[in-house]
């Protein structure tokens, strides 16, 4: 028997952070909303949620003195260390910049700029959409073209790190991963059973460390 993993959900005062915490608790993890550096350091995995504008989230993360903590944790995960998952704007902030907030810098763990969705569709994409994903532990147990919930007006570039896309006026980057660094544009904590499966896969990845 393994003890339940301790997950630090980075709390920097934006929107609804509680759902991610509760979804992880629902799956048996000990999840804490925290900005405490020691508590974050002691956790088995880190979650970076995010809603709203890119620039506002970057600022709020800095105000909470979590920018460097998040950056280090994401880099470590991308090199195969402690798992980290970014959600929505928490994923976008892993890129270098966003055209939504050109004066703000992201964490630049992934290269490239977050850009707007296609012109001929409504902004934000606020709906359930189907995923097209490649073989990745993030999607273990999901069936092809499962549906997940998106709320966003911007998206990361599609690169070698992209592991899932959805179609919204063309292919849109829906998830990226590099080793133990995972990130989703959709909200796994708001995507019913499919989303809980993704989060459970993240906990499995954490338990396997």
């Amino acid at each position, binding site marked *: 028997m393994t003890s339940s993993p301790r997950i630090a959900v980075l709390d920097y005062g*934006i*929107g*609804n*952070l*509680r*759902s991610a915490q*509760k*979804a992880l*608790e*629902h799956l048996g993890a000990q999840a804490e909303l925290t900005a405490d550096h020691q508590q974050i350091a002691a956790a088995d995995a880190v979650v970076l949620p995010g*809603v*709203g*504008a890119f620039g*506002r989230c970057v600022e709020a993360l800095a105000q909470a003195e979590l920018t460097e903590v998040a950056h280090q944790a994401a880099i470590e995960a991308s090199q195969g260390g402690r798992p980290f998952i970014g959600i929505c704007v928490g994923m976008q902030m892993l890129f270098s910049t966003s055209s939504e907030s050109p004066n703000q810098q992201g964490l630049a763990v992934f290269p490239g700029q977050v850009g707007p969705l296609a012109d001929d*569709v*409504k*902004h*934000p994409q*606020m*709906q*359930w*959409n*189907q995923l097209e994903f490649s073989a990745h532990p993030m999607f273990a147990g999901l069936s092809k073209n499962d*549906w997940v*919930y998106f*709320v*966003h*007006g911007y998206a990361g570039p599609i690169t070698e790190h992209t592991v899932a896309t959805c*179609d*919204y006026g063309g292919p849109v980057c829906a998830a990226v991963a590099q080793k133990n660094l995972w990130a989703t544009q959709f*909200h796994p*904590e*708001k*995507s*019913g*059973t499919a*989303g*809980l499966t993704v989060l459970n896969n993240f906990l499995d990845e954490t338990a396997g460390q």
Partner: protein
Amino acid sequence: MKSIRVIPCLDVHQGRVVKGVNFVNLRDAGDPVELAARYDQEGADELIFLDITASSDERNTMVEVVRRTAEEVFIPFTVGGGIRSVEDARQILRAGADKVSINTAAVDSPALISELAQEFGSQCVVVSVDARRSSEMPSGFEVFIHGGRTATGRDAVAWVEEVVQRGAGEIMQTSMDRDGTRDGFDLEMLQALGANCPVPLIASGGVGSLEHLVDGAKLGGVDAVLAASIFHFGEHTIAEAKQTMAQAGLVVRPIV
């Protein structure tokens, strides 16, 4: 691809669902959390709680409902009713809601829309627009507040444009002429408001059959359809609604 969301609306009074609910096998049909969980299992794409008490001393009751819902329900939900400030909204969002909906407060103080959008992002801000037909308005539709009792003299189409400019991320449109009639959505109103609405539009007010949901999505051109009584009274399940919509050629998230 665009899919149409199906959203049941729960009117909550002093922490209980009102308007009557007729699900079988619910321990307590009046408990909003239990009903929310049930709708989630049935395949609802989102939920809306409207706090119809909405006095400040009842606020904590609603926050508690939100807290409990967030522990059990893992689909998006919006809370409306009585939110008049950034702090009111923060309390609801911190408790686990994804969006707040404002109506009278937006008309009384349009700056609140941009304050909320700036603080939490547009995707958190739903502006609810209650309207009636009026020959005195350029568009033919006038905004009402206080649950449809008070005329504002504002043109509904112009108001939608203004609230989007101020940062609303979604519009929930209710025809007060149709609300409670079960005659179907006011399709002309949906088309008028939707024509220049760059953000998602939820249709509400008047649904009496599953065909009305299809009409709203197909003829009204909306992004989401909201209904209360056809689901609450057990006449139809969410699954039936989605089946009917899919058969009519609409894209909906299928029920697993």
